[in-house]
């Protein structure tokens, strides 16, 4: 599903002394079927942006189009409701939202709310649980007996069970250990490919943006500052640094080496590729 923001402004607590403009004339387009990373430092407006995609927030001015649904100021609830079924959201620390007495009950909550056939979803539960890396034996246990990482997987299974067409992920791997972090992002990437989703990953981890996304949007102070293929965006070292964002190490190191005449590609290449290039161009031993 294509997602389009046109001149979108959003102001929190409009008309009160605490009024705060979080989005400022945002024009941006996320193409159908893409895996897009939205990066930006804290307070850049990235979370506000993503909450517009399923109508949790409605523009103060401008409009958001998701497929054929148009969200404008004053949009009716009956317009928003069908959109919620199509857009799945994984919030930060989704394990804080668990409440069921069993894992199964928790996962089924979303599908039931969306009027899906419970029997059909139930049949798929073991497979779904395996996919997120949990054994099906957990289905009848209390989610609160699980470790933090396992609870997160249950919460994510609950979102995937609703079979969304658009998946919005807000820092889904925050606080996980390195292997859990990688496993989770790989899961989202392969789910994305297998189900032909449109996926939006909100993150401040530039390496994740580089490794998993096709397209990167950089937000700062409520506006979109850069958009493009990861490598093109990451070459903008100066503006990224000015926005308090880290440049992926491959690019940062590549550029420093280029400056001292190493013939190195400045791309988001693997460590192995960079090492290969260094070894190919290695100065002759003893040549000083």
């Amino acid at each position, binding site marked *: 599903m294509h997602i389009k923001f046109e001149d979108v402004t959003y102001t929190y607590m409009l008309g009160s002394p605490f009024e705060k403009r979080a989005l400022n004339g945002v024009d941006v387009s996320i193409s159908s079927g893409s895996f897009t990373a939205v990066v930006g430092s804290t307070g850049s407006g990235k979370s506000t942006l993503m909450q517009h995609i399923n109508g949790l927030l409605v523009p103060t001015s401008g409009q958001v189009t998701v497929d054929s649904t148009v969200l404008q100021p004053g949009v009716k609830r009956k317009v928003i409701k069908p959109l919620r079924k199509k857009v799945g959201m994984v919030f930060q620390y989704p394990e804080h939202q668990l409440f069921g007495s069993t894992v199964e009950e928790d996962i089924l909550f979303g599908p039931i709310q969306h009027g899906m056939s419970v029997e059909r979803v139930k049949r798929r539960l073991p497979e779904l649980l395996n996919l997120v890396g949990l054994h099906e034996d957990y289905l009848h246990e209390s989610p609160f007996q699980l470790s933090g990482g396992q609870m997160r997987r249950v919460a994510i299974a609950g979102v995937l069970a609703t079979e969304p067409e658009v998946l919005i992920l807000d820092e889904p791997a925050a606080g996980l250990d390195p292997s859990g972090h990688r496993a989770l992002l790989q899961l989202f990437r392969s789910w994305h490919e297998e189900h032909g989703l449109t996926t939006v990953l909100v993150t401040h981890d530039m390496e994740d943006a580089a490794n998993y996304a096709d397209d990167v949007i950089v937000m700062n102070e409520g506006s979109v500052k850069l958009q493009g293929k990861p490598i093109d965006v990451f070459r903008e070292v100066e503006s990224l640094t000015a926005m308090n964002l880290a440049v992926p190490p491959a690019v940062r190191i590549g550029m420093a080496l280029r400056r001292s005449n190493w013939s190195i590609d400045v791309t988001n290449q693997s460590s192995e590729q960079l090492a290969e290039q260094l*070894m190919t161009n290695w100065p002759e031993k003893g040549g000083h």
Partner: protein
Amino acid sequence: MSTIECKNVFFKYTDEQDWIIQDLSITIKQGEWVSILGTNGSGKSTLARLINALLTPTSGAVTVAGKSTDDEGEIWNIRQKAGMVFQNPDHQFVAATVRDDIAFGLENAGVARDEMLKRIASASERVGVDDLLFAEPHRLSGGQKQRAAIAGVLALQPDIMIFDEATAMLDPKGRKEVMATMKQLHERGITILMITHELEEALESDRVVFMEHGKIINDSKAEEFFQKPEFLVERDFHLPYFLQVQKHLVENGFQTNYLLDEDEWVKSLCTSNSRM
């Protein structure tokens, strides 16, 4: 001066359970900066809680400055000596402003008002939250909240500070702020025990303790530990990119050892190239 000493420590919550900590012994001297690494469930957080007497060993002994955590009369004294900063910045605030929050711990410790004001001023200045004393917690960034929490612990004048994944929920800017604060506390002679998943952070410390299944399977100087990155790779840890590149270079005989500072390593490559 507070030395931490764990001797043949075993721990589990219930009889039926497997050991969470098994036969663990370690000595940490005043002023050391120790990283505790290990996967989820390896016992890192349990060890931290044993050290500041939130938990007591099932068998074996933990002493801080010679006082056993088993001695009921010493528990408050030990907790005041070994302060703890937790992962979630939102779970550590009890008061409506930063100043009241720092005061809360001091009040509990029975510190007199005049002394309290002095300590709030100096602790908040040291970690750079003195301009935020009247700010409400929800108006602070994650990094500011963690620093306010650190100020609250610091005001109790601890010898030891334990950070249990204190940067895990922060953005890169917040992480930098908290790491800079740790560095500064270390320079002032406070013992730092840092539980982390981030190898970049462990690189800043003096000593690395690696835990697996409730045991310490590595305890060495950081610079020695990182000379053997295979150890981490085998355990599915993600090496910092500049060490990954060096690993390939070392394996192919282009480099003999690892440089543990990215800038220094890049600089060395640049110098070797200009000598061509």
